[in-house]
């Protein structure tokens, strides 16, 4: 299955969303949170993101969603020079994208399809 990594300035936000996505999609999908700075306060931490990607990777690829601004920069920096397509940062709404990606992954869909579902979440109405 495709792994999912959730990068947020807040560890609580990343963890809470990982819980939500796992609850909806089922525990078999790896949804790994990476949040907060090295000092445990709000911020981003490249090492935490790298470790989360390693934990999420089951060989089928990893989709990374990030909340805002420097979270994106941190992931981009980390993936620079490793553009083999196995780990994909997607431009997607954090909550809806994570849930859509986790469900697609749980159904055994490809990295391409999981990434697309996350990005298409941008256009989805809530009701």
């Amino acid at each position: 299955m495709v792994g999912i990594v959730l990068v947020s300035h807040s560890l609580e936000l990343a963890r809470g969303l990982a819980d939500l996505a796992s609850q909806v999609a089922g525990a078999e999908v790896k949804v790994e949170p990476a949040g907060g700075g090295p000092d445990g306060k709000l911020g981003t931490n490249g090492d935490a993101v790298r470790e989360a990607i390693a934990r999420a990777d089951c060989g089928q690829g990893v989709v990374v969603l990030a909340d805002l601004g420097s979270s994106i920069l941190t992931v981009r920096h980390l993936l620079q020079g490793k553009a083999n397509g196995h780990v994909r940062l997607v431009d997607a709404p954090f909550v809806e994208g994570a849930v859509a990606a986790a469900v697609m992954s749980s159904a055994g869909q490809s990295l391409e399809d999981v990434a697309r579902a996350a990005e298409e979440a941008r256009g989805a109405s809530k009701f």
Partner: protein
Amino acid sequence: MQASFESTVALPAGVALHARPAATFVKTALGFRSQLTVGLDGKVDSRVANAKSILAVLALGATGGTVLRLSAEGEDAPAALEALASCVSGLVE
């Protein structure tokens, strides 16, 4: 042109098409190649969603006991429709 198949099925009482039940439904739909939709019964609300999109299915907000209209178009449409209908009737919270 591929034939289109339709059927209706009610959600079990007390089981809304949300969170896990919705994901179970979408996972079933993703196992088929046909285009699949799920819609509300049309009495008050006739919105239709792509059955392979969790966000679209969640947005229907279908509550327990709601009659759903299922439609399928494609090579495995009859099998998909049968699988989705039995999935819906067997959903649990």
